[in-house]
């Protein structure tokens, strides 16, 4: 019996086999993403990027792009992600033929393979992939039987078309149940929001409500401006709204919004959002120094006319009324609002066992799985879309414009308060709590160590979370309505 060593090696090291067999685009995409994943984990360890998120995310990215193997197509979950398939001869395993599910595929480029499987329609092709086996006739007229395999991994399948297959996946793909029952339905975003709620002291916002809300609203400039810019870049309404939400600089919000409005693009949008969030926090201090001259960074904020001591009962009353009002206005965003305000209420009620549960278990657990799942979703086939480059540009655009908007809001407050408001506080309108408030205080302390702006900055920062939630609610509620109108307009334009 002749032993085919090449075939044994191909079967043994399937990660390498799938890499070698793949398109040049996918090949280089996988290589780049493996290195990017390693870099993220390294930068997380060094503290340059957020370690809680970047270490699991980086590792997941490495696994998603190395652990690719051929799966029997009959057992694989049908999804939009599966674009390629291969036929393997039952008798001669080295006889591999290629076909693709892509409509625009150019079969003539596949010169490496001796023969192609010619299929007339995409539906026909999908039937074969679904059946898992295929009989073909070679040039001598001989009938050959073989099985159909698709490249995939055993981690996760984000775009499941057949819910029945989830049962199979639960037995095979290790993190799929967490993805299906905690990620794709937004539970993880809500758990993180609950954790953020537990960390927030709304007393800072309640002491200066108008000032905080105004500056935080200005810091949503990126969320506003990016929407038409994204449309001009050729994105659809839901896609444009989702990428615009990056301007709010709130990871769970972007995840929630993109899952609702642009599910097919939620992986790249969320990955771009989280990557940029890590990078921009490092860049914001330089932006502040660039936009605010040193003399203005020394400005002391006016003390409040009356010192308001906000009690826990008042904070709970605020949480209940605001949550109720927001849910009444935007029921579609009620999971997010509920999560945030229940966290605030639990904190203010002083229920320490719940606070520990949400803070220590929910928040850290959800952050860990968010990072890991996002990393595992970063396969080359998902990220190598022509829209990702646009998303990369729009993401950084949204965050930069939001920061500029925040500082602009700070300048407006500076003028309206009789030059007794430090414009640096505007950067705290970007809703990462409490990082942006700390950036504001740090930048002020660099030039004037005795000036304290942290209480004002924290109020603005907390208000930033709420205004981001408002914008998410508005976009999610409005986009489906606009979609219908949009179709009418486009039909008229043609």
């Amino acid at each position, binding site marked *: 019996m002749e032993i085919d060593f090449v075939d044994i090696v191909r079967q043994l090291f399937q990660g390498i086999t799938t890499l070698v067999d793949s398109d040049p685009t996918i090949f280089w995409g996988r290589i780049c993403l493996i290195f990017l994943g390693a870099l993220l984990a390294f930068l997380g360890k060094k503290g340059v990027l957020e370690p809680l998120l970047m270490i699991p995310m980086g590792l997941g990215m490495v696994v998603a792009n190395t652990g690719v193997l051929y799966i029997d197509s009959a057992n694989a979950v049908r999804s939009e992600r599966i674009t390629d398939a291969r036929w393997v001869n039952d008798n001669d395993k080295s006889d591999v033929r290629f076909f693709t599910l892509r409509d625009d595929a150019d079969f003539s480029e596949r010169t490496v393979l001796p023969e192609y499987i010619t299929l007339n329609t995409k539906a026909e092709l999908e039937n074969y992939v679904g059946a898992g086996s295929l009989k073909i006739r070679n040039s001598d007229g001989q009938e050959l039987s073989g099985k159909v395999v698709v490249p995939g991994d055993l981690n996760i399948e984000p775009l499941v078309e057949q819910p029945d297959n989830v049962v199979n996946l639960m037995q095979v793909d290790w993190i799929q149940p967490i993805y299906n029952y905690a990620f794709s339905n937004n539970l993880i975003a809500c758990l993180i929001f609950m954790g953020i709620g537990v960390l927030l002291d709304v007393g800072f916002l309640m002491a200066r409500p108008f000032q905080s809300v105004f500056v935080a609203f200005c810091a949503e400039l990126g969320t506003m401006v990016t929407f038409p810019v994204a449309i001009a870049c050729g994105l659809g309404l839901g896609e444009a709204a989702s990428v615009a939400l990056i301007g709010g600089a709130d990871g769970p919000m972007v995840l929630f919004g993109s899952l609702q409005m642009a599910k097919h693009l939620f992986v790249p949008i969320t990955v771009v959002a989280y990557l940029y969030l890590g990078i921009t926090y490092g860049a914001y201090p330089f932006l502040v120094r660039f936009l605010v001259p040193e003399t203005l960074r020394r400005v002391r904020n006016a003390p409040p006319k009356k010192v308001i001591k906000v009690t826990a009962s008042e904070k709970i009353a*605020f949480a209940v009324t605001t949550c109720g009002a927001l849910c009444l206005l935007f029921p579609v965003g009620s999971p997010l609002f509920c999560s945030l305000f229940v966290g605030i209420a639990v904190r203010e009620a002083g229920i320490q066992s719940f606070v520990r549960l949400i803070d220590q278990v929910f928040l850290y657990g959800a952050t860990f799985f968010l990072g890991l799942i996002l990393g595992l979703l970063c396969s080359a086939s998902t990220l190598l879309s022509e829209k990702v480059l646009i998303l990369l540009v729009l993401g950084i655009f949204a965050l930069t414009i939001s920061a500029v908007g925040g500082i602009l809001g700070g300048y407006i407050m500076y003028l309206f308060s009789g030059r007794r408001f430090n414009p640096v506080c505007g950067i705290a309108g970007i809703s990462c709590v409490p990082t942006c408030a700390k950036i504001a205080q740090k930048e002020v302390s660099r030039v004037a160590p005795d000036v304290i702006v942290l209480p004002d900055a924290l109020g603005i920062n907390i208000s930033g979370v709420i205004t981001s939630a408002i914008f998410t609610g508005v976009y999610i509620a*409005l986009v489906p309505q606009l979609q219908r109108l949009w179709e009418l307009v486009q039909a008229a334009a043609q």
Partner: protein
Amino acid sequence: MTSLFLASAAGSGTLEVSVTFALEWLSWIILIAGFVACLIAIMIKLLYAVLSLFPKKPESKTAKH
């Protein structure tokens, strides 16, 4: 507004129509979000007004559970 768009859409390029459409609705998005944000700030002030009607008792920050 729909009829306005339909009228302007006829004879214009698709991208031009799309951006005009987005810009027109953006003002509404900003208006709605701004209104809700103002509402929350006003609500906080109203909350103080309502709560001041009741006598304030000193309370412990954290309850034991």
